[in-house]
């Protein structure tokens, strides 16, 4: 009976095409909500993947000071003790803070210059050759009109003037987008941290990370130790909260879309009821009518989901995710000129199709059933 199904599919397509007002409006509503959902999920997944990759590429252990249960600067004298622990290969001290720069808030990252060389980020210009030179993130450089050779002043506890040696390219990790990377000692001067750093990154030999972390914790000193596993947990939890907010938003949209679909598609309206009554009077069974309406819904769902997938891809990949990127990445402008990490996975695409099927099928089930099971004679009078 393939011919029967094909006939019903064609009838369904004719019905959808014949009602551009109702079905068009319903489809546009679905496309809008699905595009938002898919773009959001893609960015969420991309940011999560990039964050986890950064954690993987980073240190094995991060140590900060602890004061009153909160993170605090780490006295420098601990750095030598960390380096003496069995299994520790390298200790990289960092000073990280925020300072106003022009109309922006810049993230200041002070690290030993050799650590920058080791990280080897993609740079337009060159790496700093002295403590008087810095690297600037792409977004910050664009916002402030900076380029290699420009001069900037960091004004904290002490003011220091630096020369921009290079711009960290826009394809680099998004964490560097608004960063100013400078020499550790210069950052210490700017922030007034003569005897402290904000944290220490410990690289360990394979298999020693937990042992080193345990050893530091057993000193029973005001130190806070975070292993790579723990940092990954924090990153994942942070993205899950944002993803959950997005899912909540989608649930609200879903709740509103179902009755909206029922109203806009005219399934319960008199002309449509008369059409269905005519079909039944001409020998269509209730099952035939239900299948035709289900196929109408499926067509709308697949078209809406297909267009939403395309539009989400264009929004994120083609346009750089304007507006929505700021929901997942704080401090981004509405129209970011940097690469926004995004991953378009098959599961969200399938979920989008399922989402639209739920909306269309649920939105039409009552009116369709009522129309399809009514006595045709009543509607044809």
């Amino acid at each position, binding site marked *: *009976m*393939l*011919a*029967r199904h094909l*006939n*019903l599919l*064609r*009838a369904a397509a*004719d*019905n959808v*095409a*014949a*009602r551009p007002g109702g079905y068009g409006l319903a489809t546009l509503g679905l496309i809008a909500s699905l595009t938002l959902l898919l773009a959001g999920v893609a960015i969420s997944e991309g940011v999560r993947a990039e964050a986890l990759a950064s954690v993987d590429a980073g240190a094995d252990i991060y140590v900060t000071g602890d004061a009153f249960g909160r993170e605090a600067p780490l006295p420098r004298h601990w750095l030598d003790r960390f380096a003496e622990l069995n299994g520790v290969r390298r200790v990289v001290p960092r000073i990280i803070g925020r300072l106003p720069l022009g109309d922006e808030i810049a993230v200041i990252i002070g690290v030993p210059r050799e650590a920058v060389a080791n990280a080897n980020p993609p740079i337009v210009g060159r790496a700093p050759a002295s403590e008087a030179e810095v690297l600037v993130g792409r977004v910050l450089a664009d916002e402030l009109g900076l380029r290699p050779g420009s001069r900037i002043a960091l004004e904290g506890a002490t003011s220091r003037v630096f020369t921009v040696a290079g711009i960290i390219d826009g394809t680099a990790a998004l964490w560097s987008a608004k960063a100013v990377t400078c020499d550790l000692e210069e950052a210490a001067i700017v922030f007034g941290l003569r005897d402290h750093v904000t944290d220490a990154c410990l690289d360990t030999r394979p298999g020693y990370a937990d042992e080193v972390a345990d050893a530091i914790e057993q000193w029973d000193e005001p130190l806070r130790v975070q292993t790579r596993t723990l940092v990954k947990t924090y990153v994942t939890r942070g993205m899950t909260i944002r993803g959950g907010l997005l899912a909540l938003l989608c649930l609200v949209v879903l709740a509103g879309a179902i009755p909206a679909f029922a109203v806009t598609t005219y399934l319960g309206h008199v002309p449509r009821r*008369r*059409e269905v*009554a*005519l*079909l*039944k*009077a*001409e*020998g*269509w*069974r*209730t099952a*035939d009518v239900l299948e035709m309406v289900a196929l109408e819904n499926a067509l709308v769902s697949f078209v809406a989901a297909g267009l939403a997938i395309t539009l989400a891809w264009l929004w994120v990949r083609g346009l750089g995710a304007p507006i929505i990127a700021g929901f997942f990445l704080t401090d981004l402008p509405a129209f970011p000129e940097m690469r926004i990490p995004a991953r378009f996975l098959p599961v969200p695409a399938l979920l989008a199709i399922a989402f639209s099927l739920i909306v269309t099928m649920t939105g039409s089930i009552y009116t369709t059933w009522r129309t399809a099971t009514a*006595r*045709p*004679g*009543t509607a*044809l*009078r």
Partner: protein
Amino acid sequence: MANGHRPAGDGVAMTDATRLEAITRRYPVAGGAGRFELSSTTLEIEAGSWTVITGPSGAGKTTLLQIIAGLDEPDAGRRWILGREVGPDAESTLALLRRERLGIIYQHDVFLEHLPVWENVSCRLVPAGVPARERRERARATLTELGLAGAADARPDVLSGGERQRVAVARALVGNPDLIIADEPTSQVDRETGALVVQALRRRHTAGTTVVLATHDPALMDAADRHLRLHAGGLADPGVTGAGS
């Protein structure tokens, strides 16, 4: 489909006749509810007959035709359509009967306005799985019989009232039905169109099709071999036999 003899529910041999037994049905009329009642009578429409139903407005002509066509359900009583007993739960049976053996011309003009005429005419063939090309050919052949070959691809809303009525007749005839049920088929058309409709119905009747129609058109009444008059919710007709007789 050829008319023939079929077994009836109670082991009684029954032809392809349509039979209503002790039927009661309340129905809406302007200003209240009407009541159609054959509670003490049995109405039998012989296969191959031409039956005309007349009566004043609100007498229940449309209700009676809809019960015969299976478009409406009686509140009480038994019903056989083309020799087959059809109860209130026989939705699939009724659908199949209407699709394969009945042709219905409705009182009001009702179409799938977004589809071309040929799709309207052949819409009963869609769930039967008849391919589009064959549906189109069969619709065109029936439309040609009614002088509407050129209108096959037009949409119903561009047709005149008379053309629309002929399309409605073509829709009833396309499946070569055994029973045609028509509700005032010529009431809203000019004399020329009415004549075309009458001709088409007569041709089918001559070929053995049973015709039941409600009308006040003399041309259709003249062809009748039986005349049922409805009044005050009941039948006043010498052809109606008492129950059990």
